[in-house]
């Protein structure tokens, strides 16, 4: 008896037996959901998507169209609510999304909501909330302007911090940050910038009130003048918001034309993957690495290509609260598509974004940005593969893992269907990239496209066509 009691106490005292009842570690699925938009789970009763950037009146600077895809087992209904801000109240429209189908809803068809000047040089415009009742939905939005268009996923959740690595306020670039507060209480936001000229925190952009159920647009060029690289950090003091950024390159710009759209990153990370870099004539690809930490850091940028032997990584120093731009043309061989792996070698994490533009002699003209992906997943979904039949569209799949991955490209039938059919399959070696050409595979613009792999990968979509250019990550299926 004495031994039993003494033993228990001795063990407890000497070795400090601890329970394993601590909170479970964040699952991979949870980590993915925290980093990038994800397909709503099958057991989700209502999934909400937030589309911050865009305008809701014909002829606007970024006319917005919502694309809703349904990967679920049954027909889903979706409510598209346009929150115009100001005194006007929200308007909603309910649409039915057949199983496996894609539905397009023009924002202006729900509510004519032109942008209006707001306080302190800010602009009030429409934000869009899409609630899909039922699981496995994907929502993207398309904005159109400046003879270009951009398509990308809407956000699945709001947050208190949003980071953008790309952006410029150089001549001919109209940089806008869309801050969308879909909640019933006001949000207070601070905007700060890391530029190649140093850290900037404009007084006018501190404590910006984003009223409940409204969106404001910040014309960054009015506050940060003529900076080639402008990385943005939106910090929410009170409440939560969704932040997106668009850049319109006008004719005044010397090197680029078109319109870009990026969803922010919720936090800096130490590792990023940027798939889908295709060196070609008339194309400019660069990676922007933003360090929001006061301490300087350094990143290794490694091109990953199936067709080329591994190149040694390029080390790039990034100063504290600054941005480094790296021209990717120097990393890959000519005509050889590749992905880029970016890893920090010091503790300070970074945000990585790709900026690309196309012009003569390339057939397409336009610009596009896409945030890198800090996570990997076995599935990626695109509400739309191509925007028009004449587009050149590719899905690039980067396998950053140590083993080979078999990747299938699936597509639902036009107008929907019970299950997606396989339209292509690739074996992607370790740390390599491969891509599907949707034109070659006959994927129509109204088909929902799904990438499935037997190992975690990163998938991105590139669209080049007469209407413009777009780069975007897919919506992850954790």
């Amino acid at each position: 008896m004495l031994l039993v009691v003494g033993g228990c106490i001795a063990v407890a005292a000497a070795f400090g037996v601890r329970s394993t009842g601590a909170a479970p570690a964040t699952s991979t699925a949870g980590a993915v959901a925290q980093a990038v938009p994800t397909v709503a789970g099958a057991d989700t009763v209502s999934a909400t998507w937030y589309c911050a950037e865009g305008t809701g009146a014909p002829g606007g600077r970024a006319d917005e169209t919502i694309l809703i895809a349904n990967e679920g087992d049954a027909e889903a209904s979706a409510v598209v609510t346009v929150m115009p801000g100001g005194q006007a109240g929200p308007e909603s429209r309910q649409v039915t999304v057949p199983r496996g189908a894609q539905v397009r809803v023009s924002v202006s068809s729900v509510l004519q909501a032109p942008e209006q000047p707001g306080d302190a040089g800010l602009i009030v415009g429409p934000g869009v909330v899409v609630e899909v009742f039922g699981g496995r939905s994907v929502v993207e939005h398309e904005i159109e302007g400046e003879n270009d268009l951009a398509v990308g996923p809407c956000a699945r959740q709001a947050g208190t911090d949003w980071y953008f690595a790309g952006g410029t306020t150089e001549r001919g670039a109209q940089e806008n940050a869309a801050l969308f507060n879909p909640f019933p209480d006001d949000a207070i936001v601070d905007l700060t910038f890391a530029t190649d000229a140093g850290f900037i925190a404009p007084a006018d952009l501190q404590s910006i009130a984003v009223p409940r159920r409204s969106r404001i647009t910040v014309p960054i060029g009015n506050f940060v003048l003529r900076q080639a690289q402008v990385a943005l950090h939106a910090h929410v003091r009170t409440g939560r918001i969704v932040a997106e950024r668009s850049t319109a390159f006008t004719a005044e710009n010397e090197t680029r034309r078109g319109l870009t759209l990026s969803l922010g990153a919720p936090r800096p990370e130490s590792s990023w993957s940027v798939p889908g870099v295709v060196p070609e004539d008339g194309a400019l690809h660069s990676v922007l690495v933003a360090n929001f930490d006061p301490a300087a850091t350094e990143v290794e940028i490694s091109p990953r290509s199936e067709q080329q032997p591994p190149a040694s990584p390029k080390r790039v120093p990034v100063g504290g609260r600054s941005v480094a731009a790296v021209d990717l043309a120097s990393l890959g061989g000519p005509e050889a598509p590749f992905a880029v792996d970016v890893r920090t070698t010091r503790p300070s994490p970074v945000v990585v974004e790709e900026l690309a533009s196309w012009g003569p002699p390339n057939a397409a003209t336009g610009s596009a940005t896409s945030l890198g992906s800090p996570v990997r997943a076995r599935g990626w979904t695109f509400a739309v593969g191509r925007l028009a039949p004449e587009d050149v569209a590719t899905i690039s799949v980067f396998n950053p893992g140590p083993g080979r991955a078999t990747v299938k490209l699936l597509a639902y039938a036009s107008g929907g269907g019970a299950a997606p059919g396989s339209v292509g399959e690739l074996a992607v070696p370790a740390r390599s990239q491969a891509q599907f050409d949707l034109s070659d595979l006959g994927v129509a613009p109204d088909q929902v496209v799904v990438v499935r792999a037997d190992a975690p990968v990163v998938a991105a979509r590139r669209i080049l066509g007469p209407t413009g250019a777009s780069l975007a990550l897919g919506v992850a299926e954790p």
Partner: protein
Amino acid sequence: MASGESPGTQALRGHGEESGGALRTEIPTVAAVVVTRNPGPRLERALQSLGSQDYPSVAVLVVDAASEHDPGERVTGALPDAFVHRVPQSSFAAAANEALYTVRNATFLLICHDDVVFDPGVVRLMLEEAYRSNAGIVGPKIVDADNPEVLLEVGRSIDQFGNPHTGIEPGELDQAQHDAVRDVFYVSDAAMFVRTDLFHELGGFDASLFPGAEDIDLCWRARLAGARVLVAPEARVQQPEAARNRGDGAAADPVAAARNRVRTLLTLSSARTLLWVVPAGVAASFVEAFLLTITLRRGRVRSTLGAWWWNLRHFREIGRGRRRARQGRRIDDRDLRQLRARGTRMRGFVAEHVASDDRVRSIADASRSAVSAATESTRQPLFALAALLALVWVVGSRHLLTGGVPAVGTFARWPGIVDTLSTYASGWRYTGLGSSTAAPPGLVAMAGLTTAVFGAAGLAHTLVVVLAFPVGAYGAYRFTRGITQEFAPSAVAGLAYALNPVPRNAIAAGRLGPLALFALGPFLISIALRRADPVRGVQQRRRTLTGLLGLGALLAFTTAWYQLAPLLLLAAAAAIMVAAPLVGGFRIGVRMLVASAIAVVIAAVLLVPWSLALLGAGDDPASLGFSFRPRLDLVDVLRFHSGPAGGGWAAWGFVAAGALALIVGRGPRFAWATRAWIMALIGWALVWLPARFAPDVSVPAPEAALSLAALGVALAAGLGVSVFVEDVRGRGLGARQAVAVLAAAGFVLGVLGFTADAGDGRWGAPDGDWPAALAFLQTERDSGGFRVLWVGDPSLLPLDPFVTGDGTGYSLTRNGSGDAQELWRAPSGRADGLVGDAVELAAGGRTDRLGHLVAPMSVRYIAMPSRAGPGATPQAPPARLPGALASQLDLARLEAPPGLALYENTAWIPTPGTVRSANVDRVPLGSKNPTGAALRADVGRVNAVRGSPSASAPTGPGLVLWSEAFDGDWSATVGGKALRHVKPFGWANGFDARARGSVSIDYGGQLRRYGMIALQAVLVLAFLVVVWRSSASRRARPPRVRRQSP
């Protein structure tokens, strides 16, 4: 000397009357009846003072109540004309009643003690006053014979509980400040002037009420018969103060006196008065007993508590007395109210109950005996230590005592008596989303305790919390005493138990049930263990039966506070059995287990129908208290560190102290130490094993099982004292002595830990509570009925939370932050589960419309605490919850104190609320998927129905939503016309109001509830009858068979 040879036939003569002459005076005759027994030296003076009265017609009858020596010669020597009558009865009252048979032709009787000295005009003055005021009974002013300037009595009163009260301060000087003739409740029989015919009509004194209440009873009955009772202060008598409250020379028996006072109270009070006097008196006696205990006057505890218990057991005799009293009653109790000592609540309690006459003297005595107490304390260090720790306990509880208990966890604020009882009697339980299950009997216990402190619910609440320490300590003392039969080990065990961190942590976390278990658990185990004695003979069987019934009753009471109490009892019995292979005693364990099982059955019967409702709670273990997932490692568990207390090394001290008996003990001491340690190990294991191996399973609050461990450790520590005395002391210096020193040091360490925790004055409880911080919610009711949904860690939530599959807790309060009416919630129904589904969906990121999901439940506010209360230690809420709530599209975050995230639901639907006719079609009716229905429903603006649901302000037309779980017994009428009853959202109640009007919403199951209450009352009465019969049949019980002393 005359001799009363033939009582009843002999007439007394006045001494002014000529012995053989025919001339008789026309003035009324006064017969002085001096009752004596073993008279003291003042007898002669007393008789002479009667002989020297200036009233001419006074006859003196000395009734000797069986003195050892015949006082006849002394009487003759002092007053030759006095008659002496010797009776065999030794009681003052019985002897005084001889006047009924002996005295003839006397108009008045002056009944007096044998040590009372009368001033010369006393008889005349009292007689004159009797005629002037038409009084039945007149009393004189009584001063101290040794110091005639000191007042002793100018008439008397009693308080609500029958305790005498003179209104005279001890040592108060007579400065004529009370010299006015006035009605009094009674006069003492030290000198009582009573009309002879009235004395005959009343049948004299009730001899069975001597000592202590025969004079109260006589005067009270005289009052009820319509006679006046006066005091005539001009009439002055002297009596030695030391001889007060005696009438026959015998020392006063405080136990009998207290018993007789209560009996008088129960006999003569009206039935309506008894309804509140009995529970209040019983409770007040407990409080007084506690005060007496901590003031080291333990001898009076028995009289205080025993008085009520004895009388409740003899209610048949009291019933007969009440029937007699009823026949003679001519006035109502209310007419006597102004004659009784009055006051309000605590002031009245202190001034009239605690500070009634003899108590005031006791307090004075206490100060006078301070020196002797101090002297005694040096002789008895344990008393000194107990006194010191009691002081520390008071200091440590000072903020709770002065500011009340914060409404944390299940320490919800106690409502008033009426509200509590109304909740108990209600056919519909307003917990969660409502239920038709029976209300918990804990509400009755709560109302009873509140009644005991005159409606001061906050005080009752505070006392329940704070008194858990001493009550638990006394229980542990009793438990150990039953084993060791020795004082010192028992006292040490009691102290070790009270000083354990368990009650402090329970207070810090606001866990009422485990705290009640801590206080009452030792009594339960003690009684159960006593019932484990082998039974031989009829008498012992009856005694065992009575004991089992008592155990069942106590278990029922404990279970009313904490549903899992029976498990503690069974676990203790299991500990005895587990220890059997090591030290024997398997049969004891089996018998204890059987006794416990029987007690559980008895408790279940007594708690019907609530106990039946608990049986149906299998799908909702959280309603039984299985709602915690404590993250405790073995070290924490072993040192009872389930909260802020016990965090240091101090709690190891008691563990070390308990080791002595195990290491050094021999024979029975070792056996019981082993059982104690097994008990402790089981208690620890019940906490640690789930935390270690099943962290995702909800278990009871750790303090519950740790109470068992604390009791085991305390018993072991107490046994250590016995071991020290028997097995260590007197032996040569060696390892035993070293272990003993370590054990003693451990005990001191535990004491230091307790003392250190006393610093904050609230035992780690928060210095505020959420109801106070969210006081504005009280005014929001004006906008319509609503609920508050509390979500987060179940250990931080108010009341008894529900628990979802992932361990997230939630609870619902109505129209504010909730109070104790919502404690002991009903088991989760289907509707309640919908709230859990909504919380799970939101927490899992599977909806951003939590507000819509809970809007039909009238949830207006959602609160997520990350602390038990303002200022408490922060704890992380469930990982995904904060982000999930912040992501909801229909929740607006409000300003709230640190530690609380508060959201307002923008989709809230008030209850009752009216959906406009135009929107009625948008309300989903009878949906099979309530969650989906609520998610997509857009019923437009819902107007709050003002006023009481049973008689609202005009509303409609439209659909009146009533956000209680659907039940066919709900109905609504407008202008007396019944409305169609529908099931909106698939779970709620809706009434189709076609026209505008005042809506009356009623629950039709109320009669059923009354029936169940009646059933419960019948069961309790039947139980009392069984107890009464059982105890009556074992009156002549044999001496108790004591357990072998270790």
